[in-house]
């Protein structure tokens, strides 16, 4: 029995003749951070959309904790512990911070949703902003709230789509530290799409490189960084 919490098997997403993703297989082990990198348009976000059910699979299978969830909708997958954040901050703009986190927790079926919401807010340093309306938060705070909404209900898998986008260097480093700590403290495994190479290679246990909808390299960060195909396709010779 494998310790995979998530498996994408031979996943393909085709739009007519365009093969956005073609034959991608990924695995995520418990407690692991798995970085996905590649140039824009390589298919990283499309893979995340496919895994979460936002985009329909043309071919392939998505297994969550050994269960085939390929035919389930986004809400059903979320209820089974598959959570995500979005490339663009996705929060409830006109609602207070705590209210929306507590609502999310309640809808996830957490018995003590108040305590769960408080724990999530504390984890992400949002407790002092609990009563602030989300649209009045700063950008970095909104990104943290986005992550908070993804964390409620203690998901087993967290898919993060460019969580550092638009953050300052300090904010990115803080968030990276947080993510690393989360995997053990909250027993969550992370699939991370990110363009900040220092972050990806700094905190990932495994890195997969995409190009034109296909995987061109996969393995430990150091090995991937040294791979000539990766240097040529994405990192550049100076990397």
């Amino acid at each position, binding site marked *: 029995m494998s310790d995979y919490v998530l498996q994408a098997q031979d996943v393909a997403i085709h739009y007519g003749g365009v093969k956005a993703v073609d034959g991608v297989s990924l695995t995520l082990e418990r407690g692991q951070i798995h970085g996905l990198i590649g140039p824009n348009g390589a298919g990283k976000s499309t893979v995340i959309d496919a895994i979460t059910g936002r985009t329909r699979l043309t071919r392939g299978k998505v297994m969550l904790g050994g269960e085939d969830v390929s035919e389930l909708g986004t*809400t059903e997958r*979320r209820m089974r512990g598959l*959570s995500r954040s*979005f490339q663009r901050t996705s929060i*409830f703009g006109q*609602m207070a911070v705590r209210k929306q986190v507590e*609502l*999310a927790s309640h809808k996830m079926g957490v018995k003590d949703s108040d305590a769960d919401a408080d724990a999530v807010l504390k984890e992400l340093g949002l407790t002092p902003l609990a009563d602030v309306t989300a649209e009045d938060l700063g950008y970095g705070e909104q990104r943290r709230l986005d992550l908070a909404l*993804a964390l409620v209900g203690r998901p087993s898998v967290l898919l993060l789509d460019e969580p550092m986008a638009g953050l300052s260097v300090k904010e990115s480093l803080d968030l990276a530290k947080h993510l690393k700590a989360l995997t053990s403290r909250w027993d969550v495994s992370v699939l991370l799409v990110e363009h900040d190479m220092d972050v990806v290679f700094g905190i990932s246990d495994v890195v997969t490189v995409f190009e034109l909808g296909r995987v061109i390299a996969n393995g430990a960060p150091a090995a991937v960084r040294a791979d000539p195909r990766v240097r040529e396709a994405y990192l550049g010779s100076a990397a």
Partner: protein
Amino acid sequence: MSNLRVGMSTAAALAAGAAVALLVSSGTVLSLLTQAVIYAVFATGIALLLRQNGMVSFGHALFFGVSGYAVGIVLQLKLMPAELAVLVTLAGIALAAFAVGLVIVRVPGVAFSMLTLAIGQMFFLTASRSRGLTGGADGMNIDWPATLFGVPQSLLARPAVMFMVCWSVLVLVMLLLVLVLRGRFGAITEAVRDNEERARFIGIRTLMPRAAVYALSATVAGVGGLLSALNTGFVSPEILHWSVSGVGLMMVVVGGYKALWGPPLGAIVYFLARDVLGDYANHWMAIFGIALIAVIVFSPTGIAGALQRLFKGRKTVLAAGAVAARH
């Protein structure tokens, strides 16, 4: 809002209505205010859809008009007592709107508005042409019984009593909405309105809440229609016309939809403007239209929004003054 504050606001609103009914002696003015209150209930229904679902309906006149027709037909055919007919009509509107809502709330933006317009106009034409059942373009009288919910018709015929009945219903509708929307249902519908995709990703099935809001807003509009039928004892196809929905929307825009009391304020302003401006100009609507543009440009959240900002600003200034005085 705490229970105490809700209770006190309700009592104050009822007392204010009673004061108006007692102090205003002119039957004409009371009649005008009664019409304004009836439309306030109608506009509250339209605004509810906008506030909780972010959707604009051009077809809520359907529910405003069809409630009067439904009660009128049931009473004409002597199918059941009037009190039961009122309750069955509202339940029927809620169920029918929920069923229709399950289909049409999936359609986003302008397309949704056009669908509501099409459905509304379909009923307008049906009512206009079904002469045997609805009286066609001439409309139909409603045979209200001698007493309704224990209140004699002779009493309801007094403008002050009719005003107080309509005002009490408005206050009751507002109270129910406050209680419903401050709970989990309100939070869920706000979440779906703000960000439907994220709502799905926190475990909310988004269709049901949207359809439920549509049904609730239709039922509130139906309550307004029943009051109108009670007030005039008559219903005609004009009440189903899209322009009635347009008038309701104007009230919502002028009053503001973010505060629950905005649409009733808009309805009162509309009727007062119609009465006052109508004395000076035949085309008073043109002047009102300019006022509408001014509100949209300078206060997109309506008069209620402007008043809220004003009071918030004053509170801030007073608080700052108090802090400065302490130092």
